[in-house]
């Protein structure tokens, strides 16, 4: 059996007295796509943030290819985009933003620039790359967020409602990009049944 790329064991996460995640177990293998569902406030984003390492679990453990989530080795393997993500430098163009993040991941300016152009072409991001982010629509920024998640071809993608503000063509490009990466594992938080249908399995988080 193939080693899982993501292992979540007994994950608990509290904020003050409120326990948002109450003992989550999850395993995802290479190339597997898991839809993460649940009502608002059920902890989908919290789970994804724990996988990225932006949040430390209150209890339990999260490992990415055997590395504790949040370590540099684990972060190198994970690409992420978050719901209503506007975490870009608003005064810079989409291209300048992606180049900055690509350089952080690849540590090589020339390779980073090539990576950005390659992804721009694949995802048809000409307008988004050329425009300053504060002049982009929500959907355009969301496409940029997806492109950032794909930088340096991570082995695990954590995507938080990545199709939420996209038009049909952009949704098609997103799924096309995922289909061209059959080895990449995806944890896909969504409310849309169309997205769930394109994943191999689903995991529902209940309101705690």
């Amino acid at each position, binding site marked *: 059996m193939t080693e899982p790329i993501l292992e979540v064991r007994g994950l608990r*996460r509290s904020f003050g007295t409120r326990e948002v995640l109450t003992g989550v177990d999850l395993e995802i293998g290479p190339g597997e796509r898991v839809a993460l569902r649940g009502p608002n406030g059920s902890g989908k984003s919290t789970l994804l943030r724990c996988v990225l*390492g932006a949040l430390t679990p209150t209890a339990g453990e999260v490992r990415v290819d055997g590395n504790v989530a949040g370590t540099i*080795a684990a972060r190198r393997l994970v690409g992420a985009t978050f719901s209503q993500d506007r975490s870009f430098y608003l005064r810079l163009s989409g291209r300048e933003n992606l180049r900055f993040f690509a350089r952080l991941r690849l540590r090589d300016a020339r390779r980073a620039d090539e990576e950005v152009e390659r992804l721009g072409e694949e995802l048809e991001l000409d307008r988004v790359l050329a425009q300053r982010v504060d002049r982009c629509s929500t959907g355009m920024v969301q496409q940029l967020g997806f492109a950032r998640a794909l930088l340096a071809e991570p082995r695990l993608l954590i995507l938080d409602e990545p199709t939420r503000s996209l038009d049909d063509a952009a949704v098609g490009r997103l799924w096309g990009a995922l289909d061209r990466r059959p080895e990449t594992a995806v944890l896909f938080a969504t409310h849309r049944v169309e997205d769930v249908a394109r994943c191999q399995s689903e995991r529902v988080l209940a309101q705690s």
Partner: protein
Amino acid sequence: MRRDWLIARSYRTAYVLTFGSAIFNVLAYYFISETFDGGAGAQLDGAPSYFAFALVGIVITTTVQSAALAVARRLREEQLTGTLEAVAGQPLRDAELAVGLAGYPFVLSGLRTIAYMLVAGLLFGVSFAETDWVGFVVIIFTTTAFVLGLGLLIAALVLLVKRAESLAGLATFGLAFLGGAFFPVEAFPSWLEAIARLAPTRLAYDGTREALYTGEGWGSDAAILLAIAAVAVPVGIWAFDRALRRQRRRGTLGEY
């Protein structure tokens, strides 16, 4: 650094004014010096005039401000735009993240230092005939290293309490005031002078004046500053790292 330069450049007017303000700053002290020329009779640490004395005050205070204020503001902007969490999610060491935030403000302060020196030398006749340029560069470098440590400590505080600019402003003012930025510390009452003698910035002001106006005596100041920096930088990085971990644990890294 490229990211910060591109952002700064996108605000064209403010970018130009950054350097324009260098001229006005120097101009203000030039006229103060002209007004009180010969009236004070105080010891000016080897500076030939009050204006030459204050010029060093401006240069070093700019460097200290870069650390205390510019780094704090830069980090605050990252919190407000949400980019801090995105950058912290990249495969970077916390120290790289911290030093990356400080890079542009320090390079900018270096360029402003050059602008101040050019303006003072070319427009206001400050003589650098006795200057030991190696000493000047060494003192600026060691001062920068020391204030980098300070800047990282303040950045750690910004991570924890978010709005720490006023504290950074107070630290800048206190370090400039006690260090003797704009008047000799001998002018203080004896109890305050004793405290001022302990301020690390005093070494920066004294060493720079010695390097610029007498060309000697700066070595001991540089050596002590380097020793302070050797402690301050690792402590600053450690504090930033702890603050970042704490925010991840509390889940407040993305908060503003």
